């Protein structure tokens, strides 16, 4: 009996000692001394890595620029007082459940999250973001974000892109017979919402709709549906691999409408390489447009594109072997927006999580040097839409990222869309 008691006593002591070793919760989260820690949860592996990796690189290059060239966050402070930024980057593998785990891994270390890639994925961590009150910049343009208190949208939501494209058609006097091929998830549905609103406002018909799944091998059915309905303008809410196959299938079926894709529908690799261009490069050049946030083209350094000049300089200095890429621009721009929020927080004297949220809500009319239209945020949902302009591009393999400007516009109809 006494042996048992002795054993239990030993264990109790051991446990009490171990308990004392448990770390106490930090009070100033994410800011230690003069270092701010920011988190990134991105898709560094998996099919979306073509987006996630350049995007993450864009962020890294920007923050390196802030640390090395600008001396840190806090432009009004003296050089020694500025805050250096450290990044914690974790891979979500483009799975929402891993996103949650990675969020848990970083939540006690970061002041805010500067990149959360994926609509469903950011939604997966939303309950906890709201509970932990960590401001998060979403690297997707879902129309849900303005409704959230703790999510920063760094571009116009996807419906805006289609509405602007429809405005462009209307301005040219075209009444399209519209079709839409969309991915079978919420990203695709966002595109549908935008097109339906545009159809109502501008008075044209959506004659065909078709979905696809990312694991599909054959896109004959959706493309044939468009062809049968006689759609002459087919909107695509898709991702690059699907877009390539859709365009190829259309070429096969001798069906040549004008395809208009949302920004994620495009990746530079679709044109092939200089030695081995895509067999349908000619078709793509004539029949495909991509819509993105209004921005200067890669390499464009005219007046109004100072931000692009800064990006090009930093890309050369810190970019390593990252080739020119649209998503690099997106990540860089997103980091720039987050930087403005942090600067505002330092200015307001409150670099805590709550302070960062307040800074976000008070950010107004920030010049983005042409990387985006000037952005503004605010406490209400409508104010949290930073900008609404889009640029329409056509494919031009001669350009650095194979995109040449067709038109830039900011349709007033976008403001009428019910984002909130």
């Amino acid at each position, binding site marked *: 009996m006494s042996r048992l008691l002795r054993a239990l006593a030993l264990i109790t002591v051991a446990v009490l000692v171990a308990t004392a070793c448990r770390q106490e919760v930090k009070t100033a989260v994410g800011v230690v001394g003069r270092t701010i820690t920011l988190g990134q949860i991105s898709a560094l592996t998996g099919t979306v890595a073509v987006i996630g*990796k350049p995007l993450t690189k864009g962020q890294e290059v920007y923050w390196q620029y802030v640390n090395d060239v600008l001396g840190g966050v806090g432009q009004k402070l003296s050089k020694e007082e500025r805050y250096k930024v450290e990044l914690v980057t974790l891979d979500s593998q483009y799975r929402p459940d891993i996103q949650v785990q990675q969020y848990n891994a970083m939540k006690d270390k970061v002041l805010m999250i500067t990149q959360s890639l994926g609509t469903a994925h950011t939604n997966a961590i939303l309950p906890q973001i709201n509970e932990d009150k960590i401001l998060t910049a979403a690297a997707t343009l879902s129309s849900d974000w303005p409704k959230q208190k703790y999510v920063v949208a760094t571009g116009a939501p996807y419906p805006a892109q289609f509405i602007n494209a429809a405005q462009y058609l209307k301005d040219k006097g075209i009444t399209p017979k519209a079709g839409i091929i969309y991915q079978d998830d919420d990203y695709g549905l966002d595109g549908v919402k935008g097109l339906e609103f545009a159809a109502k406002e501008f008075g044209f018909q959506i004659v065909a709709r078709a979905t696809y799944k990312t694991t599909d091998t054959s896109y004959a059915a959706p493309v044939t549906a468009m062809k049968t309905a006689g759609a002459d303008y087919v909107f695509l809410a898709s991702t690059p691999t699907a877009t390539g196959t859709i365009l190829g299938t259309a070429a096969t079926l001798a069906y040549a409408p004008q395809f208009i894709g949302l920004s994620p529908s495009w990746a530079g690799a679709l044109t092939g390489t200089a030695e081995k261009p895509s067999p349908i490069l000619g078709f793509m050049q004539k029949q495909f447009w991509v819509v993105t946030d209004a921005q200067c083209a890669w390499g464009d350094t005219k007046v109004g594109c100072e931000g692009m000049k800064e990006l090009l300089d930093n890309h050369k200095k810190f970019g390593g072997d990252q080739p020119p890429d649209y998503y690099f621009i997106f990540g860089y721009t997103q980091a720039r927006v987050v930087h403005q929020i942090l600067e505002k927080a330092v200015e307001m004297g409150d670099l805590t999580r709550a302070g960062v949220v307040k800074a976000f809500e008070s950010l107004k009319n920030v010049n983005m040097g042409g990387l985006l239209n000037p952005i503004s945020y605010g406490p209400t949902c409508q104010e949290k839409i930073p900008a609404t302009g889009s640029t329409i591009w056509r494919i031009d393999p001669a350009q650095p990222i194979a995109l040449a400007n067709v038109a830039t516009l900011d349709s007033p109809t976008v403001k009428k869309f019910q984002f909130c």
Partner: protein
Amino acid sequence: MSRPAGLHTRYDEEIALLRNRADRIWLALLAVILVATPFAIDDFWLSVLTFTAISAIGAIGLNLLTGYTGQVSLGHAFFLGLGAYTAAYLGGDLGLPVLVWLPAAGILGALAGVLIGPFALRLKGLYLAIVTLGLVFLGEYLFSNLRSITGGPQGRAIPSPRIGGLNFADLGASLGLPFDREQSFFLFVVPILVVAVVAAKNVVRSRPGRAFQAIRDREIAASIIGVDVARYKVAAFALSSFYAAVAGALLGSYVRHVTPGSFDLFVSIQFVAMIIVGGVGTVYGSVFGALFIVLIPRLVEQVSPLLPFVDPSGSGAGVTVFTLNQIIFGVLIVGFLVAEPAGLAGIWARLRTYFRSWPFSY
């Protein structure tokens, strides 16, 4: 003094869970450690243990089906999803307390298992595995399309386990005790795991368990000696799905948000890996296997900054942590199957025999 293990003179001694005083002491020790753990380790590792506990419940269910009854199933993820969405609907939309939705999730899973079970009567071995694979795809289709219940492709939120104002995921706030959310959930899940283990052990050591194992070993011979193969196969599916659905409901309640993609084929494969690594046909093996499979990727992540060939952001020359983890996962499966088919439980059993017969271990 107690008799040496292995010499039994009565039936209930042979099937007893705790054979002698030494077993009871170890159990008490384990209980103390389990209760003390949340106060001794930090939140990150605690969350790893919580994931382990939840996965272990699912793994026990799969082991009952595949390990004990020999019915290969790749569809475990489907039942997990069923449980999670049931919890979401009953707990979230209908606002019922966890005392209702947790068992209800299990029961719904069991009912689904009863529906799937008859397929096992017609199909053997690999063909059954393929049909259960089809279940996973069916699940993905249903979870994406039944939007009113499942929230569609973007998934939906799942409430924390609560009974009225008492929130088990945040006992600190509800009861004014000094727990945080991780500690609270761990203390909520562990008793459920204990119940699951004891229940499984009871099934295994009694008549249904023997029937399951007879079916696994020699099905036709079992039916000849009077085992009702049809009934026990369906029962195995129902029981396994019950466990899976409970695990799914707990998982959903822990991560607070699920999507159809959370229940894909890879999740099924992870559970099969858990029982292979842990030990097919053992209950404790399921727990060991769950711990191993959940722990290794987290350990690799912690260690990865020290490894020269790992490049965290994936934009450089090395492999990412994910790639490394996947390779380790695949190698583990292959390695255990080739070299140690009895899994960790087999290794543990050998270790125990070694120490028990020491110094005569040769």
